[in-house]
């Protein structure tokens, strides 16, 4: 069977593709930021918080890490309305991504925090820093630095798994691709283009993460 690639209909739909890229970018970047905050708070609760808070975080992390993302997003979009919480597709998608990446990042950051030597924390306290300052300057910054590669690859994974949000009719890049291919029957061509776009997005995020790494974490450490 001969097969001719037709890219025309795909490029004609560039406006839709651009809108899809924009939503994917917005969802991913927001979910990374909010998810990071969630994870730092949860990791704090797990390591330094009272015992009950550690338990709550454990339940959250284990439930999220041991269930499929698709099920989580269905639960938020289709299940929560039964409890009177009706979220639009975009908000439900963001909520699901934050909840999901928050759980994975919690464990990564916990590992980072536990890699900080007790002596370093005691040194911070001995210097007269307040506990909040100790957490911010002596614990979390070096902790994030230690787990930075693991954290950023988790974030890129988040960007890629955001393709699942098309299942609840959020119009991200994958959803747009599905719409285009169903209209024009150019499935192979659309997915080639979209795969390349995802690749470029991943590389762009990786580049941004390296830039942040150089700016924020480029202080010397004694070994």
């Amino acid at each position, binding site marked *: 069977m001969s097969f001719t690639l037709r890219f025309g209909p795909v490029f004609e739909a560039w406006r839709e593709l651009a809108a899809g890229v924009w939503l994917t970018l917005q969802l991913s970047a927001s979910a990374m930021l909010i998810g990071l905050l969630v994870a730092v708070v949860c990791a704090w609760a797990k390591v330094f918080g009272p015992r009950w808070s550690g338990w709550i975080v454990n339940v959250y992390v284990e439930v999220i890490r041991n269930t499929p993302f698709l099920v989580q997003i269905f639960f938020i979009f*289709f299940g929560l*309305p039964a409890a009177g919480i009706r979220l639009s597709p975009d908000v439900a998608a963001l909520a699901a991504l934050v909840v999901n990446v928050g759980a994975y990042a919690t464990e990564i950051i916990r590992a980072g925090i536990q890699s900080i030597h007790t002596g370093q924390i005691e040194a911070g306290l001995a210097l007269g820093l307040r506990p909040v300052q100790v957490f911010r300057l002596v614990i979390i910054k070096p902790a994030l630095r230690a787990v930075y590669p693991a954290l950023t690859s988790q974030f890129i994974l988040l960007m890629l798994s955001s393709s699942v949000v*098309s299942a609840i009719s959020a119009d991200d890049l994958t959803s747009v691709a*599905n719409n285009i291919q169903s209209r024009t*029957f150019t*499935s192979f061509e659309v997915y080639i283009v979209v795969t390349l776009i995802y690749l470029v997005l991943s590389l762009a995020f990786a580049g941004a993460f390296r830039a942040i790494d150089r700016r924020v974490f480029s202080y010397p450490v004694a070994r």
Partner: protein
Amino acid sequence: MTRFPSRRALAGLALSAALAVGLSARPAAAQTVDEIKKKGVLNVGMLVDFPPFGITSLDGKPDGFDADIAKELAKSLGVRANIVPVTGPNRIPYLLTGQVDVLVASLAVTPERAKQVAFSDPYAGIRIVVYGKVGAAVKEPADLKKFAVGVARASTQDVSLSAIAPEGTNIRRFDDDASAVQALLSGQVDVIGAATPVVGEIEKIAPKGAFDTKITLREQVHGIALRPGQDDLMKAVNAFVAQQAASGALNTTFRKWLNTDLPELKKPAI
């Protein structure tokens, strides 16, 4: 001393691996009746999320009207039916890339699709309607603008809805009918575009008087889809459909699953 393979040998290895993958990825697509008989199996693409045409039975096997037809079709060719579950958006790619030999996938005969696939004579038919909350006043297509409208992406419902809905209508596209129905039931959308059999299924589970049918979008017939150029197989499929219709078996199967007689099936001019 361990000798490592040279860079050239490695490159050759990578190339041959790539070639092997490329070759094995070429599906064993049967083009003719003889090839199918030789294989002894007919690969049939079928929806499993479109009750009662395509469902998954309690023991996890594809079932429904389409499954019965697929099995009868294979029997008429003297081979076994291997039913491959497909989804609305990927069924035509499955056929065109040779993953399946034919589609008995509730595929409505439309001019757009006829450019991509070859359709047999129709073997079933249904109506596509706008269906939703009783409170949602949809008397004509222009009213759709006031509501969130759910639909299965790339389905005939999608095409007919998109054609008549006014510019700027909030059409939410889901991956399948099940999700669109779920969106209606959980109140995420006000109305959906759905086929009459799906409406029948919703009425079985929804609270009485919560939803009703608004307007008819189109009436459609389903055809068995083949790749263009499978002329010999097409003849066999059409003969099968004609025989089933003449003997009354087609109507019996339709009644078994839909509790109603088969509507008049006329292949549209495409």
